[in-house]
């Protein structure tokens, strides 16, 4: 199983076109917990996430990352974007195997192939392994992206609005699936949707203001995925929406 480790991001700053979006930001990602960050567009959420993944190119971002095992975080983060980013020239199975395909060793082993098939079965697409991504629906494509993310077995999974392009029902189904399959991982999820954050997360943070600050964590009770009808979830959703609108709760 994935060995979880605590990750701490300290003194992170982001400027975009010489304009400071946030500075002196600290973020804790406890082992095995699902942390969500809510915020409006342009508040620097995605860049914060990409900073952790080591792929923040567009903005000037800085910050020091500390892992509880003392080793650098580089190469130990899986990134899942809003766009599924399936490569159209590869089959569904090869897209799940992408990490193995891009790291030239001896080739793809039988065990890796079996694991990719197993993960495809887990996301309910076992019979689509040889299809091309173009033949799949948006929800199916995002499920393949989830399988690709799981295949990497990284200690931290960073998800950037992973379900925001899907319709409401597909989104709920995928949230349930993700909560089940990522139960043991440390997850950082960026989202616009308070309900999504509250269904899936152990800790919900809000990033807002000029320059942006992180709020104290809201920790919804109970096991995930939580029901959309859960009264506590609905109460916290109202509180989060007010917080996002900038009104005192």
């Amino acid at each position, binding site marked *: 199983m994935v060995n979880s480790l605590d990750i701490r991001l300290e003194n992170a700053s982001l400027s975009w076109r010489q304009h400071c979006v946030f500075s002196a930001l600290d973020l804790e990602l406890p082992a095995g917990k699902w942390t969500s960050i809510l915020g409006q567009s342009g508040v620097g959420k995605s860049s914060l996430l990409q900073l952790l993944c080591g792929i923040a*190119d567009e903005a000037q971002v800085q910050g020091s990352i500390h892992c509880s095992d003392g080793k650098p975080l580089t190469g130990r983060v899986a990134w899942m974007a809003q766009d599924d980013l399936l490569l159209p020239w590869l089959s569904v199975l090869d897209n799940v195997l992408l990490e193995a*395909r891009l790291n030239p060793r001896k080739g793809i082993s039988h065990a890796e192939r079996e694991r990719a098939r197993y993960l495809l079965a887990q996301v309910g697409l076992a019979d689509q392994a040889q299809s091309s991504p173009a033949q799949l629906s948006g929800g199916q494509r995002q499920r393949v992206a989830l399988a690709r993310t799981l295949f990497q077995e990284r200690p931290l999974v960073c998800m950037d609005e992973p379900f925001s392009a899907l319709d409401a029902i597909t989104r709920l189904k995928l949230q349930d699936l993700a909560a089940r399959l990522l139960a043991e991982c440390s997850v950082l999820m960026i989202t616009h949707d308070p309900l999504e954050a509250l269904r899936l997360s152990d800790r919900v943070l809000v990033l807002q203001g000029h320059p942006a600050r992180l709020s104290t964590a809201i920790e919804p009770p109970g096991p995930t995925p939580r029901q959309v009808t859960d009264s506590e979830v609905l109460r916290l959703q109202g509180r989060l929406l007010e917080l996002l609108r900038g009104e005192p709760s």
Partner: protein
Amino acid sequence: MTPPRPLLIALGLTLLWQCIIWATKTPPYILPSPLRVLDTLASQLPLLLHHGGVTLTEILLGLICGVLLGLSSALILITWGGLRRWLLPVLVVSQSIPVFALAPILMLWLGYGMASKVAMATLIIYFPVTSACFDGLRQTPTGYLKLARTLGASRLTLLLKIRLPAALPAFGSGLRVAAAVAPIGAVVGEWVGSSTGLGYLMLNANARMQVDLMFAALLMLAVIAIMLYFLIDRLVRHLTPWQADTTLNPTNTDTDAGLG
């Protein structure tokens, strides 16, 4: 089953040609009738096939050289940013010199044989192929590149396994242009100076007022060019099956019968 569309088009054009002759009473030494051209094509077939074979070889060699050269130039341009700033302007300036104007110099340097014609065909397709490949390579979606980086891909892997396949559709467009333009290069090369090839045959026949032979050679050249284009088009479609083609609308099946 309806006859294939290209055949219908060819038949229609031939009919139009014949009608023009009937209507204007043009003498055969100005514009021969389609039947007469076909007759010449049949009787002179060995001669035409010999010269056609030479021209086809020149075109194919030029295509191979031009595509390989263009592809490697594009790869060099995308890999070394420093070199790109120097090479790109040179490439654009080189394009402002008409390739036709270079033909006599190429004859001088490479002789009257096949080499100068292959060089012409290569030169004429080099720029379109390079520019299409380079555009394709630099327009890789940033998401793909970022994803590959989080997966630990090296620079070379990024280029070969992400950028290159993502550029295939653009490369295909370059290849189609090359297939259409390469015959021009070869024939112009033959016009400027040669002793074989369809261009030579046409020039010769023209000078001797063998207009029917000239038309037969022209027909041969057209067949070569069209077959080459469709062959490459088929190949490109086969290589990039994910590329959306909005003309191939499944609800509109009768329009795509002639395409591949």
